[in-house]
């Protein structure tokens, strides 16, 4: 893969690459945009260092990749509904994303990608692990692949978001949205790369349609454990002003909370996606 305007340094053979040679706060030329997009398609999650961005610049960068997504239930800073605040500190009883997941998969059209910018990080700790759902799919037997290709699963959010955010009613676009839920194929085909990947996650997926409860539980349990195989992973060590941009269609992630009582703080912009197929 040739890049002319950026440098791309893989973190693992399977997933993740650090990108250098770009300032995300400035408008991107078409060539730089195309190469960043290509790196994201190839590596599934890309990382940038030393990026100083305000909310507007963060949103402008996100909009290069599509319309921005508004979280169904999480509060946002005044005037910036597209900004999701990520914070863990001495008062935290839990932190976001500590279970393997892809963002907001309970939406009918879940986000294509998420762009997290951390301003403040603990001196040590607070890494994020990313897992390639291409590698997870490729690692299955042909028999299991064929079986899963015919199945769909429910993704729900009340058990996740009800605890943390509560239900305030009329939350998104002024519309009355209850906690979203959606039925998605277990194996989805990535709309850009055409590659197949697993699309169930421990956080939002509750049951497989058409299976008895015990069957569904056993199969989901297997898949969740399979997804946690370290060969499918990379582990990213944040610094202040690092940015991670992951493709929610083919990558899952999990935040580590090993830094209590220190502070880890930043903002996420989330790019809208299409219905999994």
């Amino acid at each position, binding site marked *: 893969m040739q890049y002319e305007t950026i440098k791309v340094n*893989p*973190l*693992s*053979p*399977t997933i993740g690459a650090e990108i250098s040679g770009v300032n995300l706060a400035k408008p991107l030329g078409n060539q730089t945009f195309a190469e960043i997009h290509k790196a994201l398609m190839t590596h599934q999650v890309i990382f940038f260092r030393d990026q100083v961005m305000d909310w507007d610049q963060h949103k402008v960068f996100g909009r290069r990749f599509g319309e921005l997504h508004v979280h169904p239930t999480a509060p946002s800073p005044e005037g910036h509904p597209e900004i999701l605040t990520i914070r863990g500190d001495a008062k935290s009883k839990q932190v976001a994303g500590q279970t393997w997941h892809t963002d907001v998969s309970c939406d009918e059209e879940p986000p294509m990608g998420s762009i997290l910018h951390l301003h403040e990080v*603990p001196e*040590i*700790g607070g*890494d994020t*692990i990313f897992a390639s759902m291409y590698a997870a799919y490729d690692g299955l037997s042909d028999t299991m692949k064929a079986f899963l290709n015919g199945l769909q699963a429910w993704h729900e959010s009340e058990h996740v978001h009800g605890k943390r955010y509560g239900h305030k009613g009329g939350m998104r676009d002024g519309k009355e949205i209850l906690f979203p839920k959606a039925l998605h194929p277990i194996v989805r085909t990535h709309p850009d790369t055409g590659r197949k990947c697993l699309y169930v996650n421990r956080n939002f997926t509750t049951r497989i349609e058409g299976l008895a409860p015990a069957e569904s539980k056993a199969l989901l349990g297997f898949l969740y*454990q399979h997804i*946690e195989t*370290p*060969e499918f*992973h990379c*582990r990213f060590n944040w610094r202040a002003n690092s940015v991670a941009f992951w493709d929610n269609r083919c990558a899952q992630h*999990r935040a*580590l*909370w*090993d*830094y209590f009582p220190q502070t880890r703080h930043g903002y996420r912009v989330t790019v809208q996606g299409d219905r999994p197929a």
Partner: protein
Amino acid sequence: MTYETIEVAALSPVIGAEVSGVDLAQPLGNQMYAEIHDALMTHQVIFFRDQELTLDQHKAFGRLFGELHIHPAAPGPEGHPEILVIHADENSKHVAGNVWHTDVSADEEPPMGSILHLHEAPKVGGDTMFASMYAAYDALSDTMKDFLGGLSACHESEHVHSRGYVSRGGKLRDGENAYPSAVHPIVRTHPVTGRKGIYVNSGFTTRIEGLAAGESRALLDFLFEHIATPEFQCRFNWQSNSVAFWDNRCVQHRSVWDYHPHVRSGHRVTVKGDRPV
């Protein structure tokens, strides 16, 4: 902890530190030896970069920490029975250590520590993950801690070593004619730090003494999954001539085989330990 002769940079708040300012090929002064030992006791696994070591220098460094262990089933290079060869390349069908384990826990007196020196690391990939068994123990409920504190488990090696080693024509160590197996407490107290750690692993531990088969399997499955919690871990990225030294009494590790068909090659020296209590 103040160090005067070495520098110690933690990899995570829980486990792992990179040690610099030392050449392991040279004899170590008493102060430097004591500080390396302190760093190992504090961080449970320590890492060194850019170390050129012959087999004799590697063994001399190991002997500072105790007598050297001879692997029951893996023969060393000619004249060096204390050296364990770690090698994977394009012809490998499996690699060593690809499940969570502590080294040779099936011995009655398992090794206190292992010192791995890689002279050839893949350009990307081939990391090793380390997990703190102190952190794994500390995170259990008091009720579970009490229950486990009274239990012992059987550690066996034939299912592990008969495939990889003796089937290639090797002989067991010192004319022994049986694969080692041993019963160890599930919770062991570290002889130096006095801290408690979990001492069962998915590589060697086969059953819990005194429980019915189904009970034993359920409890071990829970413990193996619990031990794999990312908050207890660090992930080390090797370069050629990196060295990792881990304390088998309080650490488990798992190699990541994501680099096929590339070569990852080195030698391990293993330091004898005492009977777990």
